[in-house]
């Protein structure tokens, strides 16, 4: 075993090569640090290998399949449409590989040394990775998370049980899939397999799906998903799982009594837990709280010079939030004092129609006692949405009563996940309804619905009748 000092220059050690870690490594390198990144598996982390990107690849395949088989209404009749599952999976793997290769190249281009191995703290500023002991002036923990499997009797042992990682790489399309947990992961993967023909049932413990999202639009999406054949049960709790020769039986306590479902596969998507156990944080004296590394506003842990970002600190378990934190932690490690502000971090669900939100929901504002007004614009009144067959969506803007500052924007519409960037920028700039309304939006696009909803909040939408003021 050799002990290596990383460099005589300011040294930064990043633990984990996911979206938080690789961004932190690149940013620290840009600022002149000598950077070492330790990754136990693949560069790109969950996002590129087992999360965002492979899911999107499957979603895209399923979307095209659905379009191909369901476009008679717009004059496209296609025969002999079939799914080559192997090719679908091949495409997923290819996309993943292209992206991770890209990240590797970026790290190399920025002079980041990548060390393969699982990092374990041996002291406040020393880490063991394989047979190497590394030390650095600053350490950024970006160790990510893994799917959580709840202790439901029979679940873990069941041959049907899949976590999100396994669900991405199935060797065939299951006939039926029961999803435990109606969050973003469950809904997106449920959507993939429903489109490919599986009978999909979602069981959610809470009264509503997608806990981060606007309830009003979530209800719209739920009806859409149900109309497409997804079976959804809320306030429902899986009590036991049992494999039988005729499939796996899942017992669920529903508001209207206990039900039993049979499914070929079960996707468990109830949440994720931070990968902390292997890190040996106690040897470094790094404090942990509620299963996450405790950090201050500057993302610094209880040990000065050691930062924790992304799923490791649990502030916001989203890839783009981890990336933002990665940049901030790297800059703070190099002497800045930036604060992570989650206010402009959007939440996105990549289903049909896409669903995105940024800022506050009405419920959050009510709880905070902030007075607000709401502007709504349905996609059925938006030309471009109509062309694309999206008539059940809506753009909803929530603004302060007094000054009209944009407090929240929630979009259920085609390409909502792209549209939401305008809303996030508006919030970042503290724009008011006026600025959104004063900005000319391209016609014909779905973005017009964003402007119209701002107008609606002021009772002057052009393309829908405005509600009379009481």
């Amino acid at each position: 075993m050799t002990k290596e000092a990383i460099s005589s220059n300011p040294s930064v050690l990043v633990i984990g090569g996911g979206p938080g870690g690789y961004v932190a490594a690149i940013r620290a390198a840009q600022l002149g640090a000598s950077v070492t990144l330790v990754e136990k598996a693949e560069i790109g982390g969950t996002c590129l290998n087992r999360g965002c990107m492979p899911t999107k690849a499957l979603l895209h395949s399923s979307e095209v399949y659905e379009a191909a088989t369901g476009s008679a209404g717009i004059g496209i009749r296609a025969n002999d449409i079939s799914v080559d599952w192997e090719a679908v999976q091949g495409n997923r793997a290819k996309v993943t590989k292209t992206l991770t290769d890209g990240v590797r190249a970026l790290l190399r281009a920025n002079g980041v040394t990548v060390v393969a191995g699982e990092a374990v703290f041996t002291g406040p500023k020393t880490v063991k990775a394989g047979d190497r002991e590394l030390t650095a002036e600053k350490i950024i923990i970006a160790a990510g998370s893994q799917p959580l499997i709840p202790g439901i009797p029979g679940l873990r042992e069941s041959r049907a049980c899949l976590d999100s990682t396994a669900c991405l790489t199935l060797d065939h399309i299951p006939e039926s899939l029961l999803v435990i947990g109606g969050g973003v992961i469950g809904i997106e993967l449920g959507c993939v397999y429903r489109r490919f023909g599986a009978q999909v049932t979602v069981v959610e413990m809470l009264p509503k799906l997608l806990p981060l999202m606007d309830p009003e639009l979530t209800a719209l999406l739920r009806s859409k998903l149900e109309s497409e054949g997804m079976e959804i049960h809320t306030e429902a709790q899986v009590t036991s799982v049992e494999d039988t020769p005729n499939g796996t039986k899942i017992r669920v306590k529903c508001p209207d009594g206990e039900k039993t479902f049979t499914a070929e596969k079960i996707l468990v998507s109830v949440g994720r837990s931070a990968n902390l156990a292997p890190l040996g944080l106690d040897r470094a004296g790094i404090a942990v709280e509620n299963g996450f590394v405790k950090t201050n506003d500057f993302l610094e842990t209880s040990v000065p010079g050691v930062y924790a970002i992304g799923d490791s600190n649990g502030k916001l378990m989203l890839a783009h939030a981890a990336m933002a934190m990665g940049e901030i932690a790297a800059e703070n490690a190099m002497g800045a004092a930036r604060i992570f502000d989650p206010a402009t971090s959007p939440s996105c669900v990549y289903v049909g129609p896409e669903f995105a939100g940024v800022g506050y929901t009405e419920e959050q504002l009510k709880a905070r006692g902030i007075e607000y007004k709401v502007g709504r614009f349905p996609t059925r009144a938006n030309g471009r949405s109509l062309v694309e067959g999206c008539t059940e969506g809506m753009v909803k803007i929530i603004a302060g009563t007094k000054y009209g500052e944009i407090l929240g924007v929630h979009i259920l519409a085609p390409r909502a996940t792209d549209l939401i960037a305008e809303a996030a920028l508006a919030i970042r700039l503290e724009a008011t309804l006026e600025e959104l309304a004063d900005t000319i939006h391209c016609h014909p696009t779905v973005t017009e619905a964003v402007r119209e909803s701002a107008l609606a909040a002021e009772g002057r939408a052009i393309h829908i009748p405005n509600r009379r003021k009481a």
Partner: protein
Amino acid sequence: MAKLIVMPKLGLTMTEGTIAKWLKKEGEDVQAGEPLFEVETDKLTNTIEAPEGGVLRKIIAEEGATIACLSGIAVIGAPQEDISALISGSAAPSSGEVPAAPADPAAPAAARPAGSRVVASPAAKKLAAEMGVDIALVPGTGPNGRITEGDVKSYRAAAPGPEVKASPLAAKIAGDLGLDLDTIPAKGRVMAQDILNHLEAGAAGQAAGPREETVNMNGMRKAIAKNMLASHMISPSVTFNLGIDMTRMKAMREELKNAGIQVSYTDLLVKFVAKALTEFPLLNCSVEDNKIIYKRYVNMGVAVALDNGLVVPNVTDADKKSLTEISAELRELAAAAREGRLPMDKLKGGTFTITNLGMYGIESFSPIINQPEVAILGVNTMADRVVAAGGEITVRPYMNLSLTADHRVVDGSVAAQFLQRVKTLMEHPALIIA
């Protein structure tokens, strides 16, 4: 027949008046002789009665507007009468300086001559307040330069953007709270949180309210400010202090009191100083264009403090009046001043002024001359003093007099001799009948 109510001319020198308050609303019935409005001039506030009865059809000049004398300010008439002819062409701004609409609206700052009055429609004023626009900077294009709503809008549209970068929300909050974005510390662009931090810091410094408050001067305050500054510029003044042994004045006042005649020391001072002034015409004159105008009468001004300022009514021909006449007149003037019903003429034509701060224990001060007079006598507190008299240590009531005189005409020796004469008269009151 409808009648145009005009800004009254309450004195020879009055050129304009400010509507302090309307006592009737538009559409209200008014009886002839009923109080209609209050007018504020540079001298006083007067209540004006309706010259005839009817309905107050139209208020042309809003509260706060300063209007030239004899310009229309309201119309009283029958309920249905056509009054449009009376309204047009009334309420000319007093300055007479009607700003032309600027050719280039982007350069509006020069539109209004300094010191000219702002006449604006109520809607324009409201809009300006909402927009955070200083209405005094808006060029008016309405009749006689009156500022309209449109003027405010075009001024705002043409005004260069704020030099300070601020988020739209921050700009709105600042506008709403009347905060100057310049004063808000921020790293770069001013954000809403910067304003909240600023307010919090301010609140920590001072528990209640903002640290500064800007209030427009009322008519009287503006007049005092203007007159005092003018006096300071016009008169090179010197102040002389002299202690008066008040033993005999005190005894005399007691004697009068015992005889049922109550007089104040101010009354006595008016009487004695008036006498001295007849002997020192240089202290009882005014200066105009290198000419000295000697007054062969003494109109003795006496400063009366009011809640929000002061006025100086004068006792006309004080040198020819008896002490009891002076006393009665002063009492009436002071009461009228406090009740805001001083006739304008009582505020004009003074030849000398007495101002008494003795009740506050003041021992010496340098009063400012009430133009166009050339001297003013400050009266200080009376207190027992240990003095040597005839080789003995005695305790006597003393009072300091502080005379400020205009050195253009009153040389030091003249001022000193006059003050000496006042002292002699007051220490030997029998001389008053000599």
